[in-house]
C-alpha cells in the first residue's frame, strides 16, 4: 500500500467519523458517504501495489488481485442503497418535524423532563439540551 493512499484513507475515516457525530441527518449522510469511500479504498488497497495489470494483459506472475475489486463492487452497491434509504428517512423526518435532526431517545427525554428546568431547556439549542441532561442526572443522584 502506498503512503499517500494510506494517508487519504486516514483522512476520509477522520472526516467521515467527524461528520457522523453531528445531529443533523444531512451531515450524517455525508459522513456516511465519506466513511464508506474510505472503507472502499481500504479494501481496494488490500489487492496489492497499484499499477498491476488486471486479468488481461498480465505478464507471468504479476496481476492485480481481483477479489478485493469484486468485494468493493458489492460494498459500493450496498452503500448506495443505504444512503438512499437514509436520505428518504431524512426527508420523512423533515416532513414530520420541519428539521432533519436526530432526536433524543425516550429515556433521555424522560430524564430531561424530570428536572424543572428541563422542559424549557429541551426546546432550546443543543447546549441548552446538554445542560438540562446534566442537571437531570445530577438531580437524580440527590
Amino acid at each position, binding site marked *: 500500500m502506498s503512503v499517500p493512499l494510506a494517508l487519504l484513507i486516514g483522512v476520509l475515516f477522520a472526516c467521515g467519523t467527524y461528520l457522523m457525530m453531528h445531529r443533523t441527518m444531512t451531515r450524517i449522510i455525508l459522513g456516511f458517504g465519506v466513511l464508506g469511500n474510505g472503507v472502499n479504498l481500504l479494501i481496494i*488497497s488490500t489487492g496489492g501495489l497499484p499499477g498491476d495489470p488486471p486479468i488481461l494483459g498480465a505478464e507471468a506472475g504479476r496481476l492485480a488481485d481481483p*477479489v478485493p475489486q469484486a468485494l468493493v463492487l458489492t460494498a459500493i452497491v450496498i452503500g448506495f442503497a443505504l444512503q438512499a434509504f*437514509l436520505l428518504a428517512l431524512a426527508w420523512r*423526518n423533515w416532513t*414530520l418535524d420541519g428539521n432533519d435532526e*436526530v432526536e433524543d431517545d425516550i429515556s433521555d427525554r424522560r430524564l430531561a423532563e424530570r428536572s424543572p428546568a428541563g422542559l424549557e431547556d429541551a426546546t432550546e439549542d443543543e447546549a441548552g439540551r446538554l445542560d438540562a441532561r446534566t442537571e437531570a442526572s445530577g438531580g437524580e443522584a440527590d
Partner: protein
Amino acid sequence: MGHLVPLTFALPILGAALSLLAARHQRVQRIINLVSLAAGLALSIALLVQVERDDAAVVAHIGGWSSRIGITYVVDRLSGMLLVIAFATMLLVLVFAIAQDTGDERSPYYHPAYLVLAAGIAAAFSTGDLFHLFVAFEVLLMASYVLLTLNGRPGQVRSGTTYVIINSIESMLLLSAIGLVYAATGTLSMADLPAALAELDPGLRTGLQVLLLVAFGLKAAVFPLFFWLPDAYPTAPSPVTAVFAGLLTKVGVYALIRTQTLLFPEEHRTLLLVVAGLTIIIGAIGAIAQDDIKRILSFQIVSSIGFMVMGLGIGSPAAIAATVFYLLHQIPTKTSLFLVEGVIEDSEGTGALDRLGGLAHRSGTLAVLFALPALSLAGFPPFSGFVGKLGLVTSGVDRGQYALVAVALVGSLLALVSLGKIWLGAFWGRAEEVPDGSEKKGILRDRLGMATATAVMVALGLTLAVAAGPLYALCERTATDLTTPGRYAAQVQADERADE
C-alpha cells in the same frame, strides 16, 4: 443434497420478488409468503437430518469455485438447528401478523420485506464466507429498516433513524474489519481462515479480533453497545418486534459464536467474561426501571444476550453446548412473550403498565401463555431456560468463574423481578370497568388466529424443555464440532475433494 443449501437463501428471496410483483393482491402475497417460509422450514429440517445422519456438514460451492476464492454455503449442526428454529419462528409470527390483519401487514411492502429478512437471516446462518456474512447482514438489515419504519409514523422515524445510523456504522466497522482480515491473510473463507490467522503476529490477530467483536457485538447488543435496542424495537408493529427480538440479535450472537470458536479460539476470554457480566446485570436492571411491557422485554433481550456471551467466554465444550441450547431456547421464548404483548396491545391499545390491569381475570389463557415463557426466561425448572442456565452455571463453576456465576444468578433473579412487574401491572388487579357496567371479556375469543399462533409458539418453547435430553445431546455434539480445531475446515474441504 449440497446443491440444495443455497435454496435456504434463494427460496425467500424469490418469494420476495414474486411478492413484489403481486403487490396489489394481498391474498396472493400472503400465500407466497407462507409457502416460501414453509418450504424454507421443510428444507432446513431436511438439511439438519442429513447433517445428523452423515455426521458431516452439507456444503455447496457456488459456481464450482474452491472455498478459497468462491462463496461457500455450509450447513453444519449449529447452522442447521438455527435455520430450523428461525424458519419456524418466522412462519408462526407471519401467521400471527396475518391473523392480526392491521394496517402494517396490509402495506404492499410488508410481505416482500419480511421475506427478504428471512433470506438475510438464512444466508447469515448458512454462509461459510466472511464477506458473504457481511452481505447477509446487509440484506437482513435493509429489510429490518423497511419493516421498522413501514408507515413513517413520528415515533418510528425517530427511533428508526437511530437504528439505521447505528447499524450503518456497524456495517462500516464490519466491512473494514473484513478488508483488514483479507489484507492480512489473503482469504475470507471461514474454512481457510483459522490456519491463516494462526500464522499471524498475535498483536495483529488481537486487532482483527477486537474489530470483529465490536462489529458483531453491536449487532448482538452486548454492553456497552446495546443502547440502541430498547429504543428501536418497541416502536415497530408487534409482530415485527417479535421477529426482531427473537432473531436479529441472535444472528449477531451466532456470528460471535462462529468467529470466536472458529477463528480466535482461546483468546481474550477475560474480555468476553467481563462484557458478559455487565450485559447481564445492566440489561436486568434496565428492565426493572421500565414501565412498558415492550421496553421491559427489550431490556430482557440485552440481559439474556449476556448469558450467551458468558458461555462463549467460558469457552469449554460444556459451556458452548449450554450456550447453543440457551440460544435455541431464547428464540421461541422471546418471540412468544412479544406475541403475547402483541395480543395485549391489539386488545387494549397500549403496552404501558399503568394503563393495564386485571388481564388474568378476563383471559386466563392469555395469562398462562405469558407465564409459561416468562418462567422459562427467568430460569425456573423444568422449563428450557433452566436447562440452559444450569449448563452455563455448572460449566462456569467447573472453570472457576465464581464471580461471573454469582452475577448470572443475580441477573436471573432481577429478570424475575422485572417479569413480576409485568405480571403485577398487566395481569393482576381489578379489570377496568367499561362505561356500560359490564366487564370487558373475551380477549382471545375475538383473536383466535393470533391466539393459536402464540400458543403454538409457546408450545414450541415447551417442546425444547420436553425434548431437552436429545436436544442437549445434539447441542453437545455441536459444541464438539465447534471446539475441535480443524473440524470445520475438514468438513468443508472433504466435500471439495469429493467434487474433484
